[in-house]
């Protein structure tokens, strides 16, 4: 095969993603790091869910945002490391993430605002 990585010919990029035993060792180390991180965050979430999420407590908003932040951190590591997006071409990475984040935040803003408005209307 010609030594170019920019041609669109079937699977011509795929063989280039192969790596050696040495590189594999470093990648596996990273995988175990992410595994431990995900497990620890999930465990913390569960303990907080069991012991702290009393809905009446003034603590609840803090707990809620802690859940959301931990979830986003977990999602970041799954997408960037497990799904390998962090190591893809920069253009592909932005192409996937930016439109999604934009639309989902816009939709969250619209619909949750409407939800609180409707809820206030009932009560």
């Amino acid at each position, binding site marked *: 095969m010609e030594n170019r*990585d*920019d*041609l*669109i010919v*079937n*699977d011509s*990029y*795929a*063989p*280039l*993603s*192969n*790596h050696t*035993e040495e*590189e*594999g060792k470093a*990648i*596996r180390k990273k*995988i175990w790091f992410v*595994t431990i991180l*995900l497990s620890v965050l*999930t465990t913390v*979430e*569960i303990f*907080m*869910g*069991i012991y702290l*999420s009393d*809905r009446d407590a003034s603590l609840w908003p803090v707990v*809620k945002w802690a*859940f*959301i932040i*931990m*979830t986003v951190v*977990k*999602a970041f590591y*799954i*997408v960037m490391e*497990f*799904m*390998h997006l962090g*190591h*893809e*071409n920069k*253009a*592909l990475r932005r192409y*996937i993430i930016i*439109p*999604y984040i934009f*639309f*989902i935040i816009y*939709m969250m803003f619209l*619909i*949750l605002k*409407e*939800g609180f408005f*409707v*809820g206030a209307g*009932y*009560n």
Partner: protein
Amino acid sequence: MAEHVENVDTATAWGGGRSPFRATYGKMMMWFFLVSDALTFGGFLIALGFAKASAESWPVAEKVFFHFPLTHANLPLIYVALMTFILIVSSVTMVLAVEAGHRMDQKGVQKWLGWTVVGGAIFLISQGWEWSTFIAGPDGMISTWADNATLTNNPYSPLNPDDLRYTNFFFFVTGFHGFHVFTGVLINFLVFLQVKKGVYQARGHYEMVEKVGLYWHFVDLVWVFVFTFFYLV
């Protein structure tokens, strides 16, 4: 993961025939599909947020999901936590299968992909138990349709029995996710058979494992959000 050195010849860069993303067609299409699927799940979870924000009351997950097989102890969220760990572990075995594929290690891919299929199957069985427990309702018995949790009956909101959104969102969100797990297990199993036959070894690369791996990680990713927004927040 060898670093690609890109020497762009600006004279011919705009002549076509180049991929600005340096990804194969199949991998890029898998990403497109995942983005659209993620928008569907995002829509589901945001609609759940609307329901919670506008509902008079919403059942507390710790008081609904406290059962565990073979015991009557009150163990809030522990079973869901177990399901979450099973899915995380199967995601890890999948990423190890992809890594083994990049080293052209057929035995390694076979082993890790096999464990991924097993993990996914265990998750599905767990969800079956979770659903049957949920359907049985607070009285713990699958008896008549009238007091089970169904799409038309919500025994978890005794103060607000006409608000059916709690049971509906449970079935639709976890059901849609569970269906993704089911197809994921099926696809992983088919790819496992191909790996065993040596199809990808002969092809010279294991990108198919990488592509189904993307789908499998996505299923885990969605569960992370379902876990937070259905069970915790």
